[in-house]
Structure formats: C-alpha cells, structure tokens
C-alpha cells in the first residue's frame, strides 16, 4: 500500500515538467474541442492523434492520447447542453436533462455542473484504477493460456451483448466479423499465412489504427454528412462556476454514478455511452425528484456526466492489466502503447509498474485541465460549436487519409481505412455496434493463439478449458450471457424469478 502511494507520488512528480504540463494543456483542450464538435468522437480523435504523437517519447505520447480521450468525453456535454446533439455518443444521456436546463435559461449552470460532475466522476474512477488495477494484475499472473482464451471470448461476447442491448445478435455478428478480420495474415503458432490471397500487404494482417480511423473516422463523416438537420445553439449568460451547495446536494448520486461508470468501464469493450445510460437509469430509479427527469433535472445531468467520465479511468483497468480494451478508445490506446514499446498485460505491473501510476497521474492532471478550461473558456467553446460541418468534415477526411498513411507509409493502409469506413458506415446504418468489431480485431489473435496453444500443451485434450476453476467460471458466464440474450430463454428465466418473488411476498 505504502509502496503504491510512493509510486503514485513519483507518477505525479514525473509529469511536473514544463513540457508535460504544456502537453497536458493543449491535449486536454484539443480533446474538449473534438468532443464538442458533433461528428468528431473521442475514439476518432485518439486514433487520428496516434500519428501526430508517433515521434514523441512514449510517456508523452500516452499523455497526449489520454488527455484527448478524457477531454473529448467531457467536451461532448457542451454540445449536448447547448445544441441537444450529443457531441460524442457518450453524452447522449446528457442531452435529456442538459438541453431542457439550457432552454430554461440555466445553460451556464448546466455547463458548470457538467464540468464538476465530469471531474468528480473521473476522480472516483481514478481511485478505483489505483486500487483495483494492482490487485487485478496480481490475480492475472495466475491466468494461463486457457483463461486468456476465455477472457478474449468473454470480451467479445459481453461487448456484443451490452453495446447492442436491443438486439444482441447484431452485437455478436459485429464481434465475429472483427474476429474474422483478425484471422487475416500470419498466425503466431505455426507462422502460417491465412486468407492473404497472395497479397503481400495482407501478410502482416490488418492494422488496427487504419481500421479504427476508417470505422470511427470515415464512417462517422459519412453518417454526419448524410443528415440534413441544423441545430440552433441555446445559450444564456448565467453563472458557469457552480455553487458548492449545488454540487454537494446530489453527492450520493455522484458517488453512485461514479461507481457504476467505473464498473461499466471495467467490462471489456463497453464504453462511455453505456456508462452514462446505466448511471442515468440508476439515478432515476433512486431519485426523489423522478418526475423532473427529462425536463431539466440537475440530478439526471449529474448522473449522466459522472457516469460517462468515470468510464475512462475504469476502462484503463482491464486495458493495462489484461490488455483487454475497456472501451473502443482504449483499444486505440493499446495499439499506441505497442507502437511505443509499452506492453500492457499482466506482466506490466512486474515489468514496468510505473506506467500504471503514470496513467493515474495523467488522468488526474487532465481532470484539472477539464475543470480549468470547462469553467473559464465558455465563450470560445460556444464559437467552436458554430463551425459548419461542411467545412470541418473535408479537413477531417484529409486527416483520416494522412493519419492512416503516416505510420507505416504505405497506401495499403489507406485502402484499409476506406474499406472499413464504407463497411462500417453500412453496418452502423443497420444498427450494428462498432465496439465489438474493434474488440474482435484486437482480441482475435489472443483468442486464436491461446486456444491452439492450450490444445498443443495438452496434446489435443480440451478438458483444462473447462476444469480449471477460473476457466470454468468465465466459461459459465459466457454461456449464461449468450443464453440470456435469446429472447425465449430470458423470458422464461425472468418469469421464474418473478414467480419466486411473488410467492415469497404473497
């Protein structure tokens, strides 16, 4: 424990240099702007910035990427409040109460509360990250090849289930497609080339960064330009810095939303949007002012903003300790870490434990940045919202092209970006979630390698996959998740429970 505190202090001190502080400032501000601009999402921002931070030192590169990530998740609330359009999908729940508050002439208060809630949410998540990640990393050292196979499968299944609540089938299909994409190229057990069709560029497989830039950049541009609607900015000149009493009044909602958000973040591939909706729903259920929800409830706004911001540090827990991305943007972070020679996974805490505490420190500093920028730069951020998307999207597409080209400097990656953009756009239009697809691409190799390595170790006997305790538990959870997503099964199970409870009460 004391050791951890010492390392945390070292992590904080590590970034107290002029260069780091400068990077924190511009990256957080850039993140807020990216989040505030409708059509630019956190994942897109992080994916595009990987190219720009390619030449930086590893710690500074991760610093910039993380600041953009957490800044963008916050920045989306601005758009949600003033325009009633979520700036990023993460702030969709914020529109429900944020915009009505703006219509009542309380835009300043809404922006202020969103800022403090985001900061508090991130802080709750940071505490969880600093406490849980070392424990999880230690537990993960006991994981063998069998457990990692199940974990990879669990990540794709749970992400498919939770990112497409209405229709888990589409989530599963997206996950399988992602896993199939990962099968392309050289496999790692026998070094055999699969599905390359004689194209040399496919030998190394499909790189994650161009695929992400396509699925979250180009596809998003197509989606944004498809729409006609122009929204009107509703702002008011009331005070932005919130009163301490307003913040403290809903302290339990804040704490609960922060914890829910953190746990949603820990679940692989389930991101900020689910975190916000889950905390919003929980707050509504527990609230004494339930009738105000959707009509400008401060509590609803606080729950949504705390919930989505707490996901960011929460998502870093599995990302750093298991190399299972906690959200789509965290998947990009994993790819970026590998580019910079940092290997997330169970060995991270033994090989380079300082990385975890540096990430904690980065999130802490970016929270300070969000507080400062969010409460002071009200007017400039409103003018950012007025940028016409016709002018913006052309420039963003150029960045998508350069961003996917620059890392390996081959046109093939640009073609990958275009292919993923167009296919991603079509899949999105048909309501397939993108997160399981991305998770599949990143976990495909882990799943494939560990399944076959396990079978090789046992000389073809699959029983350890089911008899080792941790394996058995994860396997049961997966089976349960899939069964519950079949409507007929879940209906019967629910009926069973309600009958049981009605008998108990009656």
């Amino acid at each position, binding site marked *: 424990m004391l050791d951890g505190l010492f390392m945390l202090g070292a992590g904080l001190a590590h970034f107290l240099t002029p260069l780091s502080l400068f990077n924190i400032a511009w990256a957080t501000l850039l993140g807020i702007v990216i989040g505030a601009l409708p059509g630019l999402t956190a994942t897109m921002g992080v994916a595009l910035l990987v190219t720009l931070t390619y030449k930086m030192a590893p710690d500074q590169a991760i610093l910039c990427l993380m600041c953009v990530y957490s800044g963008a998740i916050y920045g989306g609330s601005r758009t949600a409040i003033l325009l009633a359009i979520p700036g990023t999908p993460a702030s969709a729940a914020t529109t429900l109460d944020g915009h009505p508050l703006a219509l009542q002439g309380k835009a300043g208060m809404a922006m202020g509360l969103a800022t403090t809630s985001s900061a508090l949410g991130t802080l709750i998540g940071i505490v969880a990250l600093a406490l849980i990640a070392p424990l999880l990393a230690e537990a993960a050292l006991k994981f063998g090849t069998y457990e990692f196979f199940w974990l990879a499968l669990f990540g794709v299944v749970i992400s498919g289930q939770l990112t497409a609540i209405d229709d888990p089938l589409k989530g599963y299909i997206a996950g399988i497609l992602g896993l*199939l994409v990962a099968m392309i190229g050289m496999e790692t057990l*026998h070094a055999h080339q699969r599905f390359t069709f004689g194209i040399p560029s496919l030998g190394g497989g499909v790189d994650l960064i161009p695929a992400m830039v396509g699925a979250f950049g180009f596809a998003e541009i197509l989606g944004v330009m498809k729409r006609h609607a122009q929204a009107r900015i509703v702002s008011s000149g009331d005070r932005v810095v919130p009163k301490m009493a307003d913040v403290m009044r809903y302290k339990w909602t804040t704490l609960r939303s922060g914890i829910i958000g953190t746990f949603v973040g820990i679940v692989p591939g389930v991101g900020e949007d689910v975190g916000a909706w889950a905390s919003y729903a929980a707050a509504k259920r527990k609230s004494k002012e339930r009738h105000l929800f959707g009509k400008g409830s401060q509590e609803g706004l606080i729950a949504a903003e705390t919930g989505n911001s707490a996901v960011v540090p929460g998502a870093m827990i599995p990302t750093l300790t298991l190399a299972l991305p906690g959200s789509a943007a965290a998947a990009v972070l994993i790819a970026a870490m590998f580019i910079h020679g940092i290997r997330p996974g169970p060995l991270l805490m033994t090989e380079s434990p300082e990385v975890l505490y540096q990430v904690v420190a980065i999130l802490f500093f970016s929270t300070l940045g969000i507080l400062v920028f969010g409460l002071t730069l009200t007017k400039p951020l409103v003018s950012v919202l007025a940028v016409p998307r016709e002018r913006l999207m052309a*420039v963003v597409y150029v960045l998508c092209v350069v961003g996917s080209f620059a890392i390996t400097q081959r046109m093939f990656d640009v073609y990958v970006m*275009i292919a993923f953009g167009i296919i991603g756009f079509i899949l999105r239009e048909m309501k397939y979630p993108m997160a399981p697809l991305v998770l599949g691409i990143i976990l495909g190799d882990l799943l494939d390698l560990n399944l076959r390595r396990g079978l090789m170790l046992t000389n073809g006997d699959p029983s350890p996959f089911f008899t080792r305790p941790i394996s058995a538990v994860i396997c049961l959870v997966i089976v349960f998740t899939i069964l519950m997503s079949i409507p007929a099964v879940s209906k019967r199970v629910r009926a069973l429970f309600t009958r049981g409870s009605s008998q108990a009460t009656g």
Partner: protein
Amino acid sequence: MTDLPQSPQVPTPTDDDANPAMIKADLLAGLIFIVLGVAVFYGAWTMDRLEVRRIQPLTIPGLVPGMLSLALTVCGVVLTLRSLRQSMPGDWQFLGQAILSGATGRAMVVMALALVYTLGLVGTLPFWAATFLFVFAFIMVFECWLAEPRKPILPSLLWALGIAVVTSATVTLVFERVFLVRLP
C-alpha cells in the same frame, strides 16, 4: 450489469429509415453473412493442415477461422429467419425508399468525392494539389449544391478557397517537415 436501461431513445435529429426497411435490410445482411460464413468455412477447411510438419491435428491454422465461420453462419441464419418471420407487405418499398432517399444520396456524394480523391488524385497529383482540390470541391458541393437552403456562392467560394489552401499547406508542411513523412 443486469439492470441496464432499455436504451432510451436518443433525441438526435436523424432522418433514419423506418422499421420495415430495417427488416428487409436484415434479410439481405443475413443472407450475405451466410454466404460469407460458408465461404470462410470452405477456406478454413481447405487450408493447409501442415501435415508435413507433424503438428498436433487440433492446432491446425484453420481451426479458429472454421469455428468463427460456423458461428457467423448460425447468426446469419437466425437473422434471416427472424427477418422472414417479421416481414410485412410492402417493406421492400420501404427499403427502396431508404436506399434512394436524399440522405443516402448525400452519403454517396461524400463517398464518391473521397474515393476520387484517395484512389484517383492522391498519387497522380502532388499531395498538396490533390488535397486542395478535394477540400475545395467538398465544401462547394455541400454548401452551394446539396445544402438546404443553398448558401450564396461568393462567400462560400472564398471560404472554400481559404480552407483548402490552409489545409493543404498545413498538412503537407507539418507531415513532410516536422514528422518527416514522405506523403504519397
């Protein structure tokens, strides 16, 4: 994690297609997934089993792709059957309307501009020239042709010129001078 909200409707101003169109889109997608699944399964089945190298027969490279392709085929079948069960008269027309709507047209224009720029212009012209043309054309098309109401030409022309010059100059200079990337 069981008490997640039933995804409340997000109040985003989208002109999304109606449900009947989605049912038929699901049918088409389901059939495509079945074909894809079977094709991948064939590829996995006929994949080299490396018998020469005497590897454990269960660790063949085609194992996981084969399992995944089966899973995809099953999901495709479920999607197709579900769509057939939900189908109602006239939903093909809804799908046709959704595909031929103005919104899809706008997306197609973006796609066409992007493809001409990336596959045609980049590589034949110097990068800065290609980028200038793309940004200029993109802004002009969407402000003066596909916008409702259309914007006056002169201000848009000036803005488009300005943004195109600044973008192509900045991107080219930053990547070639600062990051030392040889742009295509």
